[in-house]
């Protein structure tokens, strides 16, 4: 047992105690509210006790960098901010934990996959290591298929198209395992009758710099998206369904790059909803003749404040939305946040952190659930399988694409 000494010179204290602002760890009331809200609930696992959020904040507030790093809590935290939602002092847990993760002394805790992903993303623009040549090859091939599918020579999946209105930033899986998803999104853009493009310079909506809390990496990754997008002169950057990508590029972007980007940022479900409301997009909900539960991704809901748009869209493309309980601000994290899904060794932990989510999915009723984040999507699918729930997991945008009423052929 070693005495902890309050360390005024602590790096972490300086990083996360932003005096004069309102989220200030030293202002913690030690009220304990956060402890009752952790996504881990009472779950534990050999070698993983899970976080005690108050201890995280308090150790940070006393400058106990080493103690906190050694506590095992930093990478157990899902950065879900369930605790933050109830904090009377608005102390933002994902900020505190990410600052702690960013300490040099915590580097050893970063998972192998995370390190590798960051490296390839920085080198190639894609976490999965897709090279520019591979990108071009893949997209051109998908585009041809797409033109055939749409039965319209004008229909294309373009890249690096200057002056396009929208730039779509896909999830890495859409250019690898899940090409169909890219086509599905292409359909939506096509039906909007707007010009859109991909970019070969940056192919990826993710930003793992966020998970490791290193500002310099986050900034580099963000600029890899922003600068080429600005060169293309787009009106809006349309993000694939990705929770942390949305939070970083929509909410944190200005802070990270220190300026406003020269374009709007939105996400595919929000954009689709806009066009549906304008009457441009039409759906046939009978394609999904059932009700669907909606899972709020922490990054999109609690951390970015988007609750209604995905629900509204979902309601248009199936028989109706079923609410999980609790939901919205109180929603349960899928159990895969905070970098867990980015670590192939975390599967058994994720099944523990996701236990309540699985119970909730079961209790909700319909065997269908949709979400607006491909990471949550993956975790929910794995939970359904692991806990034998028989629940089908979808994303809102892909359901929208399926339900799209489209007049194929030129000039609709």
């Amino acid at each position, binding site marked *: 047992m070693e005495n902890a000494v309050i360390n005024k010179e602590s790096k972490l204290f300086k990083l996360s105690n932003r005096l004069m602002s309102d989220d200030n760890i030293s202002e913690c*009331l030690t009220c*304990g509210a*956060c402890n009752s809200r952790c996504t881990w609930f009472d779950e534990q696992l050999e070698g993983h006790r899970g976080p005690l959020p108050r201890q995280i904040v308090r150790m940070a507030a*006393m400058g106990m960098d080493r103690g906190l790093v050694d506590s095992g809590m930093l990478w157990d935290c899902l950065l879900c901010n369930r605790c933050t939602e*109830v904090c*009377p002092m608005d102390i933002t847990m994902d900020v505190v934990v990410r600052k702690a993760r960013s300490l040099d002394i915590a580097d050893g805790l970063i998972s192998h996959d995370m390190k590798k992903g960051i490296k390839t993303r920085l080198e190639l623009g894609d976490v999965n290591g897709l090279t520019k040549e591979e990108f071009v090859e893949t997209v051109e091939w998908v585009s041809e298929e797409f033109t055939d599918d749409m039965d319209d020579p004008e229909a294309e999946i373009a890249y690096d198209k200057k002056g396009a209105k929208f730039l779509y930033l896909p999830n890495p899986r859409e250019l690898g395992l899940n090409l169909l998803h890219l086509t599905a999104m292409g359909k939506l853009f096509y039906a909007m009758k707007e010009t859109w493009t991909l970019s070969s310079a940056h192919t990826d909506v993710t930003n793992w710099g966020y998970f490791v809390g290193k500002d310099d990496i986050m900034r580099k990754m963000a600029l890899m998206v922003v600068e080429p997008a600005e060169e293309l002169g787009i009106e809006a950057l349309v993000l694939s369904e990705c929770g942390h990508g949305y939070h970083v590029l929509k909410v944190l972007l200005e802070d990270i790059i220190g300026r406003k980007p020269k374009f709007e940022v939105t996400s595919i479900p929000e954009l689709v909803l806009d066009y549906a409301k304008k009457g441009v997009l039409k759906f046939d909900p009978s394609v999904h003749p059932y009700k669907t539960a909606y899972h709020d991704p922490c990054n999109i809901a609690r951390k970015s404040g988007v609750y209604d748009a995905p629900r509204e869209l979902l309601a248009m493309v199936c028989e109706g939305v079923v609410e999980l309980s609790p939901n919205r601000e109180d929603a349960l994290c899928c159990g895969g946040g905070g970098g867990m899904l980015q670590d192939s060794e975390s599967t058994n932990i994720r099944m523990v952190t996701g236990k309540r989510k699985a119970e909730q999915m079961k209790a909700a009723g319909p065997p269908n659930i949709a979400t607006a984040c491909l990471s949550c999507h993956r975790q929910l699918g794995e939970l359904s399988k692991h806990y034998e729930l028989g629940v089908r997991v979808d994303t809102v945008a892909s359901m929208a694409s399926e339900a799209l009423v489209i007049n194929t052929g030129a000039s609709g």
Partner: protein
Amino acid sequence: MTETHPPGVLIIGGGVAGMAAARLLSGFEAAVHIVEKQERLGGHAGRWACMATDACLQCGACLSMEMADHAIAADRVTLHLGTRILKIHRNENGFAVDLDNGLSLLVKKIIAATGFSPFDATRISSYHIGEFPNVITTAELNDRLKGERSDDILGKHPAPEIAFIQCVGSRNRKIGADYCSQVCCKISMRHASKLLHLYPEAKITIFYMDLQVIGKEVRDFYDRLSGSVELVQGVPAEILADEQGEKLGIVTEDRGKRARKARRFDMAVLSVGMRPAEAMEETAGLLDLSPNSWGFFNTSGAPPHAPDIHVAGCARTPGDILSSMQDGRLVASRVIRDLELAPVSNDLHGDSEKNVPAVAVLGDGPQASRVARLVAADGYRAWLLGAPLQADPAADEPVGLSVEPNADVYEVSGTAGNFTVGYTAGGRRERLFCAAVIAAFEPHHAGIDAGFGSEKAVSSEVFSAMAKENPENLPDSVAIIFDYAGHENKALARTALEDALRAKVAGKTVYVIARKMLVHKADGQRLFDRVKKEGIYFLRYEDASGINIEKTADGFGLTVAEATIPTDHPVRVECGLLVIPPQVMASPDFPDKARLLRQRLDREGFLQSPNVRHRLTRSTRRGVFFAGSGHDETDVDDLRAETEDILAHIRALSVKMSAAGPPADPGVAINERMCAKCLTCYRICPHGAIVLNDKMMPQIDPAACFSCHLCMANCPAHAIDSEAFANNAFAEMAKKDKTVLFACERSAYLAAEEASLPEAVQMVSIPCACRMNVDVMLKALLGGASRVIVAGCHDGNCRSMDGAREAALGVRQAHRIPGMDESRVSFFSAAANEASRIRRILSKT
């Protein structure tokens, strides 16, 4: 518009603050109007359930019943119930007020006593109030207790597990309520006591942020409660449905395991805080007042932009029932002074010099000096006995203040308006005649010895002097430990935090180490937040054994088992100066002072019993008052408020004493021919109303007598006569074959009036249960009653202190007679607000 006479005073709101203001004003030449939206008076207090267990827990709610009755009966108070104000016009003569009942009032002054609203707990979705039936608020629990419906949830469980969750809607900057609501800790502690009383097997847990154990009543029941209730620091923000849907789940910290654990409860009670009244904006609009950032009108005097508008009670700031009443009186007192209202009849305030009443302030330190200054400043002739007058650069040179710093008071005899204070000073024996006596003695400050002999930690007073005079000269680091040897004192805690800030500003490293942080008064939370924000380290510990102190070369080294970080990380704090505020304790000479004043001490030995009938500042003797930290946990502001309150009481008193003609006949008198001069009555009269006349015969002073009849029930020579309650009267009072309920006029009678009694019950109002000795119980039975039931106040709630105990004793004595048992003679206690309970008890007869 013409001048109206008498001047009108409008009181908006008929809660306890408004009623208290009306009560004081009713003795003066003013036309008082109470406008109340509801159809009844009493406000929240009027709906509050009695919290008495075996004894009264001193909440004050039952007092609202009597106050309402008084307001209804008072001649110069007009009630406008179920009425709203449409418009208020200010003009050169005051205000024209249009009511929705068609009336228009002309008033000179307005007292806004519009109260508060409980926090709407549905705003915090994660508690699922309304969704989970067994999650309720303290307000709902109160309603169930009051309606005797607590079995709705708890009936099913032989040993229900109940969680109280504190600070719901308070101390929360995010929702714009960064203030402590002051009352919810007390309410939960009382509720917990009450539930344990009703369900002795219940397991109760209170989850708190910082339990606000402040004030003599609270310390008292906290100490009794702490063994039987689980107190857990840390307030859960979410309640989960249990898989079975029966129990509730709450996740808390399991420190030992360094993880979270889910706990199960049958019921969760959310201790909701006080928010501004729902109609706050309407009030603000009508009166053109601007609320503070929380929505309260924290302007107590007449605010400069709204002269002649005063705010009282919880509309001004969150507070409990007794403090709201006090606030109402203070404001009324100011109105009386501002308008120079004349008492209803000639009084001791007469304009001729010799009629100005004298007030003696007894004390031994700075508090007495402050009180005396305030008394003199209010126009009384004040005598400060036993303490020197402290310089006060902020105050004017007092006029009409005499000081005897070395007076040693040995006698306080006589009664209100007519006291004789005997004292010696410099070998002289002096006597002073005065109308009222204020006791403002200093408590004992026990320095805490941290175990290092002469190098012990310094007290907060020493630190305060250093921090104020020359903070730069303080050592580089300062640690302050709160609650180290017992409950922290709120006044010392606040000063220490202010001094800590001074040290911090001077560049020192400061540590505040506390078990529970007292955040009293509306701005207490902001002070605490500021302390943390300025970078003062805040450490929390669980109990004193968790702090190890050692002497180091340049100060002290503390090892603190910090409660909010992992157990294997005790925190090491090095400091050049260790500050431990002293324990504020009863002074060793308080028993003497109590004898001198013929008053009781409280359980901890402080002056003044906690009896709510006399709190906050009165005693059982009319005209004898208490002020300052010798009788309660007060700070400088409280002392000022207490003094103003006492002056308000003295105003009311002088009205009473000077009512035309001799004082009202108390209905009891000593028959000199039969008196055995045993002086039993003199000794036992709880109100000091028996005085010895020139012939050394005991005599009842009508101005001081409360007509409790205790003297009569106890006089061995049967020398005390009563007009209405003579022994023989009891045989006549009893109706044949009825169950006769003798009910105390201030408690059980008021409650029974609201409850429709069974046919078989005949109710007789008695002035105090202490009249009911065994003789009169038997007389009533002889008179034909089939059964005698005596109902008095709860233990500790009797205005004459022991009435209920006396009656219960009489019942026990009766039971010794063959054939007498509970079915013939019995006793129960009840409060004025316990109609449902009385109905239940009597329905069994």
